[in-house]
């Protein structure tokens, strides 16, 4: 009897500890977000969004940073999405059990675990030096595209796998070729799953800093990038630069820029959850 009542006490206390730990985790998240808004929210105004960087914190703005982030976002998306989806289709629909497919699979899961800063070293040598792109928007985008490829490939593969065989058989039965089946039947129904993966991958692009530092992206760029060959900076680079300065005014600037960054990231993640939920309600096979 004694032992069983002791067991019950242990059980109850773990319930309390578990709940406390969970709430603590959520509280930290809430504190982070609240603190950032507390420090930075009042700093955000029209001038902050449209000013160029400056060594006076009151005059400094994030125009070059957010335009750079948009450049990187768009060019990375354009380079990574087609390659990622094609690779996913190839692995799932064409090369399912070959030796090459096996090597590709292992390779992709390894690439997914390579630290982002290593991709920076790759980009620095291959895109920056070898292809002569220097520290341009294009070099940054290509580097980040390679970084998110594994995420897009895995998401594509998983959504293709969820498509029922009966759908493909029906298309083949009507005389469709393999590609016609994929293009007209399989891809449309797996669209939302693929999109979810793409959006999550792009949300990572927005916050990525380390590889861009390595390829030589600058924190101080006094003009807005006009072509893909221009020097650029992005929001996280600007934040990094401001955090490293001693004056409190720059810390406030950093917090304000973090708010903008967080809003972008949370919108993208919310969008991904939205697509996923809508799709799981629609497809019931």
């Amino acid at each position, binding site marked *: 009897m004694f032992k069983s009542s002791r067991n*019950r006490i242990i059980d109850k206390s773990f319930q309390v500890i*578990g709940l406390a730990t969970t709430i603590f*985790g959520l509280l930290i998240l809430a504190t982070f977000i609240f603190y950032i808004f507390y420090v930075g929210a009042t700093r955000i105004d029209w001038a902050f969004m449209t000013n160029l960087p400056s060594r006076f914190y009151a005059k400094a703005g994030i125009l070059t940073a957010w335009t750079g982030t948009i450049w990187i976002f768009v060019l990375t998306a354009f380079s990574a999405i087609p390659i990622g989806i094609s690779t996913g289709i190839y692995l799932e629909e064409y090369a399912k059990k070959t030796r090459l497919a096996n090597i590709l699979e292992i390779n992709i899961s390894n690439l997914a675990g390579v630290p982002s*800063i290593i991709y920076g070293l790759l980009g620095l040598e291959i895109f920056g030096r070898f292809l002569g792109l220097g520290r341009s928007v294009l070099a940054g985008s290509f580097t980040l595209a390679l970084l998110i490829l594994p995420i897009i490939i895995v998401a594509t593969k998983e959504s293709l796998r969820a498509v029922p065989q009966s759908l493909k058989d029906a298309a083949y039965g009507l005389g469709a070729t393999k590609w016609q089946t994929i293009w007209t039947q399989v891809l449309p129904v797996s669209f939302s799953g693929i999109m979810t993966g793409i959006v999550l991958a792009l949300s990572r692009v927005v*916050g990525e800093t380390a590889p861009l530092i390595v390829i*030589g992206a600058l924190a101080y760029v006094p003009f807005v990038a006009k072509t893909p060959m221009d020097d650029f900076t992005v929001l996280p680079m600007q934040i990094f630069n401001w955090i490293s300065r001693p004056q409190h005014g720059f810390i406030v600037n950093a917090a304000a820029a973090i708010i903008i960054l967080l809003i972008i990231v949370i919108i993208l993640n919310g969008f991904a959850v939205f697509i996923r939920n809508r799709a799981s309600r629609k497809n019931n096979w």
Partner: protein
Amino acid sequence: MFTRKIKELIIERALLLSALITILTTLGIIWVLLSESFAFFKVVSLWDFLTDPEWTPLFTQKHYGILSLVCGTILTTGIAILVAVPSGLTIAVYLNEYSTKRMRNIVKPLLEILAAIPSIVYGFFALIVITPVLQYFFPSVSGFNALSAGIVMGIMIIPFISSLSEDVLNAVPNSLREASYGMGATKFQTSFKVLVPAASSGIIASIILAISRAIGETMIVAIAAGQQPNLTLNPTVPIETITAYIVQVSLGDVPQGSIAYKTIFAAGLTLFVFTFILNNISFWVNKKFKQQYV
């Protein structure tokens, strides 16, 4: 009919071509790291690299001992794991066995936001919030230290462990739970004596992945842990990790082709080897020790 076949073939080849880009990426990484490191090891002996206690490539008195950077990396990673594993596992067990299904469906995605927040934001917290708090309680803590970077990094990787472990706990067949409860076990006994052991391969794999992630994490340590390579396990003094060193050199004006430039590739190679080994142990554990239930 004939053109249709050609078209199909062209499409298949085009898809294969894009798949091969992933192989080229890997080869590219290995080639870049090895070729630049090779040039580095022509000047610095491998023995010095592995045994010299000092790392000062940017000073006049140059030393190239990777140990102090490795030590910094292990220190911050260790602190992060001490934070993330107990809390992540507790959360996973709690959400899986104790909480209501509704609560789990709300809390799990909320916690995953922690992993979606860019690491630069965590760096800000470590430096601006956590370090002053630590200094308030322990005045001897310096402005840059491994402790605050490690704690914040641990918070960041909690969802890696909590979500992945919850997934594998959830995959344990219900018959095991029912058998345990049928014997009169409490939820605690069922969780830790039946479910966690049954899901251990997945849990261990998730922990190893989290370690690998912490080793490669860059911005938090670059901002909050300092830039002083230090062969110490004291978490209150400035240190430097492998990743933070690469950032430090990249930000400075180091001429291409110089020995200092090559050091970042030797450091990168070391980092790559560490994470490569850990990732593959994780895959292997997951595959080899996975319990099969029919």
